[in-house]
């Protein structure tokens, strides 16, 4: 049985941007290796925690939405627990309302990003172009 899942995990803030991306990549590969189909992913960047975890007050949040067998979740969570860079994780299965909501949210974010880009482009034309070309 294939199910829809959503997983969020928090990485320690001591990582550099690159290490963080590496870690994300690692978990992406864990999912792909197990034959999961990644529907969507989001990086929330460094975020302040509402309460300290392991004496840290902030962390890198990352979200995966994927379709896979239930056994994949077990493997993924095992990898989370083995990796000391991950401070916290949460995996939830999604019902049809959750899936509909996630899709809506995705489109909303995309629209907002598009609006922000068009607004930001004329203000800072050259730096924006540079980043796009690279």
């Amino acid at each position, binding site marked *: 049985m294939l199910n829809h899942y959503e997983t969020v995990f928090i990485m320690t803030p001591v990582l550099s941007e690159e290490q963080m991306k590496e870690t994300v990549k690692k978990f992406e590969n864990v999912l792909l290796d197990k034959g999961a189909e990644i529907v969507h992913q989001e990086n929330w960047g460094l975020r302040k925690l*509402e309460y300290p*975890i392991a004496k840290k007050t902030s962390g890198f949040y990352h979200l995966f939405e994927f379709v896979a067998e239930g056994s994949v979740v077990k493997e993924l969570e095992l990898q989370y627990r083995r990796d000391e860079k991950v401070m916290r994780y949460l995996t939830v299965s999604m019902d049809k309302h959750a899936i509909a909501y996630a899709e809506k949210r995705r489109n909303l974010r995309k629209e907002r990003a598009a609006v922000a880009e068009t607004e930001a482009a004329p203000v800072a034309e050259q730096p924006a172009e540079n980043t796009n070309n690279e």
Partner: protein
Amino acid sequence: MAQQTDIKYLTPIAVDIRKKKYCRFKKSGIKYIDYKDGEFLKRFVNEQGRILPRRLTGTSLKYQKKVAQAVKRARHLALLPFVTDNLKSNN
């Protein structure tokens, strides 16, 4: 003596007609409550971060359960505090 004054204090004083409470999820057709939206969930907790009862918010039982679930998930991910003081005044 003290008891008497207590009872006096507790008796309901003339209550004016309140607006009827309603379930905001039913009214606006929200089917799923997102645990990732901490700001939204703050409406359903008090200043100490405790979940507000349905009798105060007017949420229907079906959605109160979902609110509770979402708040608990958000707490796990440190998007909401387990306990604090002055949650509302910070924002």
